């Protein structure tokens, strides 16, 4: 079967290290998202798996076979590119058929597979057209169909939805999820969009400056970020980080107090905007600066003792800029972070789950 083992992959561009001894196991049939800001090395890692880029050190194994030195065409994978890379001089049919033709499939097999793949992506009406006559969304469907037509054991996707407009992206996302689940391909999906990663993947690997900060199921990643970076990158609005003084095993700020497993000094409380209840007194003092009615929630931006914080209040809450509120975060949902290392207390160093 086709699990992927990434074994201490390193990539340098001159003096710059794009990937630092990065290791990752992807199980057969699993959907992994590589999530991170631009420049974190996620696309480089994907291109190294594909063989389009050569690693400086380390090995890649696909289905137990060491492919580190093989050219892309011998690695047995398919890929969807960010800008589609649908061949402009071939009809949609020939695009979808391309991989099969390269394998020397018979015309009958090609026809069967092209019909199956184009049916999955709903592009049958366009098979005889040229890609230039299609919209961006349709071209992306052609690119996915081309990849699925070869029934790949491993499917690599490089920000496939980022060139689509918001509405189309949402639609394609749910469609992709069902189509890819049915295909059973081991999928590595690169994105900078955390909702995309969370929505699609079985597990999300959050990358930052060439290392994987944390890899976990989307919900676990959201609720228990291993580092401050992950908490700040995953979720919208990002997690609040409030520094609090600790003494005698308790963190205190304003009228708020919580036991914490940290020595005396400072600790950072990572609190999600929606894990905060608004009360009249007895909690964190919060000065409201901006109110944004988002429909489902009323997003409040303000300061807790001078530190930026966001609170998702009920949409019918009567709050105005300039109000002072008292916040009571759900204690069991607070993530305590060591302000020096940026790691959450209790998470193991290395963070891979």
């Amino acid at each position: 079967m086709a699990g992927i083992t990434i074994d201490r992959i390193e990539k340098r561009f001159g003096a710059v290290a794009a990937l630092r001894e990065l290791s990752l196991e992807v199980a057969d049939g699993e959907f992994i998202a590589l999530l991170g800001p631009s420049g974190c090395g996620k696309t480089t890692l994907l291109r190294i798996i594909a063989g389009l880029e050569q690693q400086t050190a380390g090995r890649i194994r696909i289905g137990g076979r060491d492919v580190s030195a093989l050219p892309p065409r011998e690695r047995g994978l398919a890929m969807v590119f960010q800008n589609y890379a649908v061949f402009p001089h071939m009809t949609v049919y020939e695009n979808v058929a391309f991989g099969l033709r390269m394998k020397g499939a018979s015309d009958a097999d090609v026809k069967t597979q092209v019909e199956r793949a184009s049916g999955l992506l709903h592009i049958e009406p366009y098979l005889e057209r040229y890609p230039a006559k299609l919209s961006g969304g349709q071209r992306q469907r052609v690119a996915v169909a081309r990849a699925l037509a070869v029934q790949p054991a491993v499917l690599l996707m490089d920000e496939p939805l980022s060139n689509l407009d918001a509405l189309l992206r949402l639609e394609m996302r749910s469609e992709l999820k069902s189509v890819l689940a049915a295909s059973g391909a081991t999928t590595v999906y690169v994105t900078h969009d955390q909702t995309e990663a969370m929505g699609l993947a079985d597990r999300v690997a959050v990358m930052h400056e060439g290392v994987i900060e944390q890899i976990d199921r989307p919900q676990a990643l959201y609720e228990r970020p291993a580092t401050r970076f992950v908490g700040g990158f995953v979720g919208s609005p990002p997690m609040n980080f409030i520094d609090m003084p600790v003494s005698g095993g308790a963190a205190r700020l304003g009228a708020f107090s919580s036991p914490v497993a940290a020595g005396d000094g400072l600790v950072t409380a990572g609190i999600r905007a929606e894990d905060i209840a608004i009360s009249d007194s007895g909690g964190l003092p919060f000065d409201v600066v901006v109110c944004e009615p988002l429909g489902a929630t009323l997003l409040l931006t303000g300061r807790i003792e001078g530190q930026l914080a966001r609170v998702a209040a009920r949409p019918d809450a009567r709050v105005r800029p300039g109000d002072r509120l008292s916040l009571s975060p759900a204690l069991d949902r607070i993530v305590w972070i060591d302000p020096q290392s940026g790691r959450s207390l209790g998470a193991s160093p290395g963070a891979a789950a």
Partner: protein
Amino acid sequence: MSRSRLLPYLLIGPATVFLLALFVAPLVQTIALAFTHDGAASLANFAKMVGDLNFGLSIRNTFLLVLTVIPLQLCLALAMAMMVQKLEKGRDLVLWILIIPLGASDLAAGLVWLSILQDRGYFNTVLNMLGLVDGPVNWLSYETPVSLFVGVVLAELWRATAIVLVILIAGLQLIPKEYAEAAEIFGADAWTRFRRITLPLLKPSIQSALILRTVLAFEVFAVVYALSGRNFPVLVGEAYAWQHGNQNNGVAAAYAILVMAISLAATVVYIKALATRPETQP
């Protein structure tokens, strides 16, 4: 008319005057010259041209040269362009060196090759040193038409392949590298990628390069003249000979019209044969 409406005309004015004075006017004059004889409209110049001993020969030689040089140049330039594209370091330097011949004038290029290929030239010196010949060998005389032809082809290849190369490289740079990468992922080896992806996407550039190069190749003259004198008559060489040797500018103009007609026809052939449907381009 307001200033801003006048501005475009002012801007294209100088170029228009230049073209009218130095291109359209001589063209009209040449046509008039070719189609008149003793002050009356006549085809006498063309009759004289066709009746000349060198006419058939120069037609044959010109076509032979074009049909040999152009395909060779296209293949060479394609190979060179693909190699230059592959370079990761020193690409600009290599490109610079490859296009140096573009800077040399036709006549200078012809003289360079003459100094190599003439009986006491560098080529014979090397052959002599290697003991392959004793004494000077004449490669460029009318008695050695094959080696004369090969010499002219070599000089033309050296002189004018770079223009094709430059156009092809410009075209290659317009092709996003993802196409070749996608093809590679889906199983295409280097040759298949070249044939199935690069070549079709490069077709508009190939067409431009071929039109430009072929039109110029039909006008080949200085290189041939430097290497062979009139031992290897070509069309423009005949026009030159009629103009200066025979002082008959009517027949010279007829040759010029003929070369223009052939060039136009070649262009039409390329436009038809290498037509690219706009929807098949990126």
